[in-house]
């Protein structure tokens, strides 16, 4: 198995040992090529593999023992599944003959993860092991990527068979469509040319497909304004004049108005999630929809689509560019939609993202994110936890390149950001990696600080410490008459002391004037650092579209 992983180009495994995988760990001990990162919890291991995959584009690998080791991976696997992230999780299993007997540390992990993996395997015979490993990596990383779990009974690991790693994986029930149908692409361009108020709406698919430069080129040729989902952050340059920001529940006024008034949506690798569409019957009422996605099940799932194109976005965009680049028609189209671009700019100007900065007062979390942007010059990899911290990190930092914003979009997993940052740091040792955290979320996988310290992974955790489960409290404030049921977190623990106890650096800012200096210091230290910033607990994320309301019904600041 170790040989198969090495032959497949795997250089690092995030894992946690136990009885059922002792044989693998014994082999790992001898291996010089395969690096193993010992985490402090299996959930952390999966998020690290996930962060590694998101930052690098490679497949993340994770290894855990049977029973509790395996069940601890479920949240991580579901997180990767919802966001289509390529990871392969190997779990040990009790010996084949004991399966089904409720043996010690037995869990039916194949059954448990069936609905949250792209595919999973129970290896019944050592002869099949190399082939299955090959298939697992193939499935995880191709088509619409996703997590694959391989469950291996101890006896299968213990016995020896001749090692044959197949050159090609062939799975007869699996043939993703990469090439967009040329006729469909032509129809899409024809439809587009008739329109006056087009919008490009793009998501995680653009990043997974590596289509960012094509996207920028295509939008530029035709001068079409672009909005991204949370997952699409960085797919299109955040500083580009055509960029309108994120849309949806906490999207910009500009993006939500544009999508509600446009007459054509080019949906590129995005899936019309309910957090994006708001009230579905009133979503983009004037628009025809062209939907490009590699997964046919995403198309026509939530909204009726006029031109579906199944294929890899990069391929489809290349075809679209070919049909438009340098043509007179493209130039006149760009000209024709000038009033629309002006309208969009006007929305952006009249209602920008904003907050009330208090230079001498309470620290505004938005200000902290802006300072992170300024200090890192937009060059960092930002991961987030879930809640207000996640939304502010999306709103107030401009992501110019793909794979620089890593966040649990689909599942919304608190505790994702810190281990994901560690995984990203392993993948990108030279980069500054910052987890923008909340004081609630960071405590969900805080044990991984030991991992960061042990392996000298200098991730920085900026805790927007509002003493609350802020996002839930925001809903209570707005929709439950301010009854803060179980959302107040007394400021426990002392994150500075905690960091120090782990052998990491800890910093704190309590006043606005201190923020810059403290961030600078924290970013400058050699190892991992916790930067605890006591922020204004009353700050809320705006704009906000209440759940189930149409996008035009935004609550503004």
């Amino acid at each position, binding site marked *: 198995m170790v040989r198969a992983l090495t032959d497949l180009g795997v250089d690092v495994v995030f894992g946690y040992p136990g009885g059922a995988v002792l044989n693998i760990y014994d082999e790992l001990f001898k291996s010089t090529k395969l690096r193993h990162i010992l985490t402090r919890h299996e959930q952390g291991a999966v998020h690290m593999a996930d962060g590694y995959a998101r930052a690098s584009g490679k497949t993340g690998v994770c290894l855990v023992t049977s029973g509790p080791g395996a069940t601890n991976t479920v949240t991580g696997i579901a997180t990767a599944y919802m966001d289509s992230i390529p990871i392969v999780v190997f779990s040990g299993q009790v010996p084949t003959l004991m399966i089904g007997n409720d043996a010690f540390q037995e869990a039916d992990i*194949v*059954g448990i993860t*069936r*609905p949250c993996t*792209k*595919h999973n395997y*129970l290896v019944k015979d050592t002869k099949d092991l190399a082939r299955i490993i090959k298939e697992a990596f193939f*499935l995880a990383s191709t088509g619409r990527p996703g997590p694959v779990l391989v469950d291996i009974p101890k006896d299968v690991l213990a016995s020896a068979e001749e090692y044959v790693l197949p050159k090609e994986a062939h*799975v*007869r*029930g*699996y*043939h993703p*469509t990469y090439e967009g*149908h040329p006729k*469909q692409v032509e*129809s899409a361009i024809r439809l587009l040319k008739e329109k006056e108020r087009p919008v490009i709406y793009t998501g995680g698919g653009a990043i997974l497909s590596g289509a960012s430069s094509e996207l920028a080129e295509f939008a530029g040729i035709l001068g079409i304004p672009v909005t991204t989902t949370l997952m699409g952050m960085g797919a299109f340059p955040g500083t580009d004049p055509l960029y309108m920001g994120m849309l949806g529940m906490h999207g910009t006024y500009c993006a939500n108005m544009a999508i509600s008034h446009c007459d054509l949506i080019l949906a590129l690798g995005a899936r019309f999630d309910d957090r994006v569409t708001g009230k579905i019957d009133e979503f983009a009422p004037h628009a025809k929809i062209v939907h490009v996605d590699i*997964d*046919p*099940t995403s*198309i*026509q*799932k939530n909204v009726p*689509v*006029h*031109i*579906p194109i*199944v294929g890899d976005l990069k391929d489809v965009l290349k075809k679209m560019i070919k049909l438009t680049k340098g043509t007179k028609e493209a130039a006149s189209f760009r000209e024709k939609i000038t009033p629309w671009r002006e309208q969009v700019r006007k929305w952006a100007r009249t209602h920008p993202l904003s907050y009330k900065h208090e230079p001498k007062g309470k620290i505004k979390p938005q200000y902290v994110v802006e300072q992170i942007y300024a200090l890192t010059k937009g060059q960092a990899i930002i991961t987030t936890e879930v809640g207000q911290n996640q939304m502010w990190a999306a709103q107030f930092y401009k992501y110019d390149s793909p794979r620089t914003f890593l966040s649990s979009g689909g599942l919304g997993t608190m505790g994702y950001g810190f281990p994901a940052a560690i995984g990203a740091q392993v993948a990108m040792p030279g980069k500054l990696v910052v987890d923008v955290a909340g004081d609630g979320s960071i405590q969900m996988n805080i044990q991984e600080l030991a991992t960061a310290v042990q392996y000298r992974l200098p991730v920085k955790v900026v805790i927007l410490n509002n003493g609350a489960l802020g996002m839930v409290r925001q809903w209570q404030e707005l929709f439950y008459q301010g009854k803060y049921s179980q959302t107040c977190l007394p400021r426990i623990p002392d994150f500075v002391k905690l960091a120090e106890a782990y052998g990491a650096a800890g910093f704190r800012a309590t006043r606005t004037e201190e923020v810059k200096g403290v961030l600078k210091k924290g970013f400058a230290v050699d190892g991992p650092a916790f930067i605890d910033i006591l922020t204004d607990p009353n700050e809320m994320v705006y704009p906000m579209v209440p759940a189930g309301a149409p996008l035009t019904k935004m609550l503004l600041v």
Partner: protein
Amino acid sequence: MRHTISVLVENEFGVLSRVSGLFSGRGFNIESLSVAETLDPSVSRMTIVTSGNDQIIEQILKQLNKLISVIKVVDLTGVETVDRELVLVKVNAEPETKPEVLRLVDIFRAKIVDVAPRCYTIEMTGDEAKVNAFLQLLRPIGIREVVRTGLVSIARGGNVVAQADKMPHQGRG
């Protein structure tokens, strides 16, 4: 609307739960499902009867296609098919009702496959309407137990749902 879907799948453990899990997890309903090996022992065929509006059926077909263990999916609705179900029925066979039972068995070209004192076990095949009609008529006589296989379906004429690779699905348009 009701649809009969023929699905070729890898003949391996866990496939049934992948398919049924897809239906239950997404709130689709299964009216009947039958599974058995095909000529190629590495492939099984499932015949699934389900219902839903066009959008739901489209999702069902696409989601089935998306399963890695599924080799081929064909919606047999709108195709001329032969549909069959097998039913085994235990009915009361009292001296005064026996002739009626025998008459029905004859009319429906069913078969008595087991005889016990005061009870016959009857085997009958037909499409769903025929099976329902048969059971309807037996009911007043006294049915003790019914076992039905669920529908299997095959296209009329020379067309086959053979084990070709999955077709890339282009959606509607």
